[in-house]
């Protein structure tokens, strides 16, 4: 066996790690790999920072390769370690903190740096770039305490930052030195249309303005311009361009110009030192988009693996604006010059614009605004350099698109697309490759296609096309195959697990993990509670609940607070109480020195700051049932006063609510659920943002489902309207049980409904016999529940867990 050679990658970013992924496939055991990254994170998708800032993705979702990936591939990863020098004589790299790593081959992929205007005050607090996770976090926190933001630079990056800051609730002004925005990607007409659109979204523009200085004591207060005017602002994001990061080339004697100079095989002038990504300059060009960098990575990986390659010959790029809500696309040389001809159509009613630029009978550039469906095919034509003579009009009008009035525009466009046309520009995935993955490699879901081909794995702009092709190739088989595992311990999805548990009658969490071959035999804090729930749901009468597989709150039947104390919420059915109960709660609160008593949003009383050892004693004195304010169970049924006192009331909302709370208290579910009952459509109990809300109308009850008031508000959908209270109970029972049986653990009804579809739910509950069967099953589950507080109060063995061990004795 040969000893693996040492490969060191400097820069844990998009280009470098992609090259490594490629190399691992081509030559798995050839290198012992070490990666140094200056950031504290594993490899993440920088492109998606725009989407994170705009609020539609979370930071944790943009990790491309998580920590486990490095381990699984035996890669040594040093995060937070910046390399300061490569000693090309001794063949070692040296980090700022003094770590040295020897190499046989070293790859520089240090990306670029945001260019900061060298004006006075640019070093003040509140002046930042938009380049990495840290910048995003700074913007999040600025938006919490400040109102006004300025973005300097109206290019792609600047506009994406501005859009994100708007979403964070800031007032945003974009400053640009040119008279029109995105001048490097758009012609004047498209630029104007874009500006108008962004202005209606609330973005303000100051054009033809040159920044002169930044003032403010400590933190930025004002931005001054060369014409003497100024703008008050609390935050400045500079998005005026990027510069290839050539620091290492400088300190290590490697040739550079604008970027580190490389040949077609990514070699620098020093043997065994390669470079790729935004930090390099190839044939005079430094790129700032991932597609060309990935092509470079493929070439480098082949060279390092000893696989033949024709080398990298440069790329034509295309751009898209991601988060503005308007589609903008441009590619190639889209400004007409002498010797080229342009054709354009502009539709101000539909808000679309299209321009193509032709030179010597070939397509050389294009701009699309509003409708960018033809972007990929135009881009393919530019890249291929084919003659388009005689087809100019066709290209302008869109090949077989809706413009020509043919039916099924979108689908037929995908159908007619040639196999070698690139659908995913970032990763260079062709239609043919998608077809192959679906037909021959068994990819039947979007996630699988993405994992297998990398299509849509970077900017995500092609998602609609990829999904379209998936349907085109897979037809009815879409979504049929294995889903992602419920956690890192298994590759099985929720449905498979539930099915296996049922068919094999597995009876404990351990057994499930064992029989279904968990790759982590102990499970984790995600799968253990899930399994505990599924087992209890499937076998309500036989399964013995495992308290060790429940979270703290559900083990101690109270909500743990950040200081380690707990909160106590007694059950108050329907939010309707009595003076006697209030006196009891008040005296218990006094006796135990409860520091905070508060009404909750769900009309209950919450006693905060309780020590763990006091919990059972308080429950004992309260003699009230647990309000279950801590569990994945029924929380509260909120009610309005209804026709008992209210002049608008049409039904007895309080009685209905109390009846429901008594019926479903203690019922566990995939996630917590909240109910409400309003006595008329004025809806004072806010029933239409609950998991299930009942609204009385004259002579009937409406049942609304799937609402949520959390991070993202989702209003309920109307499930049905019924006449009697009995029917309300029947539908509610059936609905809750159907959710219990089909929901994923930790999935609120709002997400569940969006996932399975309202129609599916309606269909499942449509027939009365089905509803009754579901109702019977929910009754069974309810029949075995007991009040946890009482159980603990009466049982010393359970009570001991609330107390510290008596005391240590020296021996």
């Amino acid at each position: 066996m040969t000893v693996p050679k040492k490969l060191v990658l400097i820069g844990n970013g998009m280009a470098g790690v992609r090259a490594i992924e490629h190399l691992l496939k081509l030559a798995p055991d050839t290198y012992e790999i070490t990666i140094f990254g200056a950031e504290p994170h594993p490899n993440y998708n920088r492109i998606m920072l725009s989407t994170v800032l705009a609020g539609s993705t979370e930071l944790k979702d943009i990790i491309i390769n998580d920590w486990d990936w490095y381990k699984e591939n035996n890669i040594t990863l040093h995060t937070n370690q910046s390399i300061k020098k490569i000693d090309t004589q001794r063949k070692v790299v040296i980090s700022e903190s003094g770590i040295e790593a020897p190499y046989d081959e070293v790859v520089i992929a240090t990306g670029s740096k945001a260019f900061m205007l060298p004006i006075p005050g640019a070093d003040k607090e509140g002046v930042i770039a938009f380049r990495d996770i840290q910048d995003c976090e700074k913007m999040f926190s600025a938006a919490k305490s400040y109102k006004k933001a300025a973005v300097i630079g109206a290019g792609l990056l600047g506009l994406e930052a501005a859009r994100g800051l708007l979403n964070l609730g800031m007032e945003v002004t974009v400053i640009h030195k040119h008279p029109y925005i995105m001048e490097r990607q758009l012609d004047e007409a498209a630029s104007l249309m874009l500006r108008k659109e962004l202005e209606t979204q609330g973005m303000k523009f100051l054009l033809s303005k040159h920044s002169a200085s930044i003032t403010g004591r400590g933190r930025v207060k004002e931005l001054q311009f060369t014409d003497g005017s100024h703008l008050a602002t609390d935050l400045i994001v500079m998005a005026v361009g990027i510069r290839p990061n050539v620091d290492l080339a400088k300190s290590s004697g490697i040739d550079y110009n604008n970027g580190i100079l490389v040949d077609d095989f990514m070699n620098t002038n020093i043997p065994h030192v390669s470079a790729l990504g935004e930090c390099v300059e190839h044939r005079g060009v430094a790129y700032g988009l991932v597609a060309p960098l990935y092509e470079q990575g493929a070439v480098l990986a082949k060279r390092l693996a000893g696989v033949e390659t024709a080398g990298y010959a440069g790329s034509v790029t295309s751009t898209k604006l991601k988060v503005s809500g308007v589609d903008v696309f441009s590619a190639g040389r889209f400004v007409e010059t002498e010797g080229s001809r342009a054709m354009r159509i502009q539709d101000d009613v539909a808000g679309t614009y299209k321009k193509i630029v032709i030179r010597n009978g070939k397509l050389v550039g294009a701009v699309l605004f509003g409708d960018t469906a033809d972007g990929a095919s135009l881009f393919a034509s530019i890249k291929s350099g084919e003659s388009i003579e005689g087809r100019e009009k066709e290209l302008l009008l869109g090949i077989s698109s809706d413009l020509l009035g043919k039916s099924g525009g979108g689908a037929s466009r995908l159908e007619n697309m040639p196999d070698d046309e690139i659908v995913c520009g970032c990763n260079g995935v062709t239609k043919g490759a998608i077809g192959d993955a679906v037909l021959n490699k068994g990819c039947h879901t979007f996630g699988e296609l993405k994992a297998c081909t990398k299509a849509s794995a970077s900017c995500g702009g092609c998602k609609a096309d990829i999904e379209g092709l998936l349907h085109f190739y897979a037809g009815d088989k879409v979504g049929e195959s294995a889903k992602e595992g419920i956690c890192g311990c298994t590759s099985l999805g929720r449905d498979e697990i539930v099915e296996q548990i049922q068919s094999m009658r597995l009876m404990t969490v351990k057994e499930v993990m064992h029989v279904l071959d968990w790759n982590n035999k102990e499970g984790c804090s995600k799968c253990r509670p899930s399994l505990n729930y599924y087992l209890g749901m499937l076998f309500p009468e036989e399964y013995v609940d495992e308290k060790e597989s429940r979270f703290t709150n559900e083990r101690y039947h109270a909500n743990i607070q950040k200081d380690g104390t707990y909160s106590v919420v007694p059950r108050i059915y329907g939010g309707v109480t009595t003076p006697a109960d209030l006196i009891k709660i008040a005296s218990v609160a006094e006796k135990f020195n409860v520091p905070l008593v508060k009404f909750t949003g769900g009309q209950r009383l919450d006693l905060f700051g309780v020590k763990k050892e006091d919990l059972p004693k308080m429950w004992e004195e309260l003699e009230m049932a647990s309000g279950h304010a801590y569990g994945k169970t029924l929380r509260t049924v909120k009610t309005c006063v209804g026709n008992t006192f209210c002049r608008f009331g049409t039904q007895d909302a309080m009685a209905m609510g109390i009846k429901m709370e008594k019926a479903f208290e203690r019922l566990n579910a995939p996630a917590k659920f909240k109910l409400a009952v309003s006595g008329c459509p004025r809806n004072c109990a806010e029933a239409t943002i609950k998991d299930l809300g009942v609204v009385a109308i004259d002579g009937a009850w409406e049942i609304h489902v799937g609402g949520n008031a959390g991070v993202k508000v989702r209003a309920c959908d109307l499930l049905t309207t019924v006449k009697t209270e009995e029917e309300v109970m029947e539908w509610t029972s059936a609905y809750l049980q159907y959710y219990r049986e089909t929901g994923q653990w930790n999935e609120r009804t709002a997400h569940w409904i969006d996932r399975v579809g309202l129609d599916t739910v309606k269909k499942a509950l449509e027939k009365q016999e089905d509803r009754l069967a579901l109702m019977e099953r929910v009754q069974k589950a309810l029949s075995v529940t007991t009040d946890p507080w009482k159980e603990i109060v009466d049982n010393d063995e359970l009570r001991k867990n609330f107390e510290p061990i008596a005391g240590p004795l020296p021996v």
Partner: protein
Amino acid sequence: MSKLLIGKLSDIDIRGSRTVRVKETEIALFRLEDGSVLAIENRCPHKGGLLSEGMVCGTVVHCPLHDWKVDLQSGLVKDPDDGCVMTFDTEIDPEDGAIYVTI
């Protein structure tokens, strides 16, 4: 260093935990499935969460506040987070199940 008698095995449920305070330090004791008892300082290095209240998976406890994972044997926080807690040697008397901790 001193060896202290803390309690007996039956004081702690299997896969459960109890706490004990020794002067300034609160110690969390975990009884694992294999019968062993491990002791660590009851304070998550992240934001001070009470590790005794966390879920135990194998030899790892998940902090109840933000799910950091702390190895009970080494006291080290698992990736992707970083940190460590104090661990204490434990001994169990096979005869009477008495638990001793060395501090």
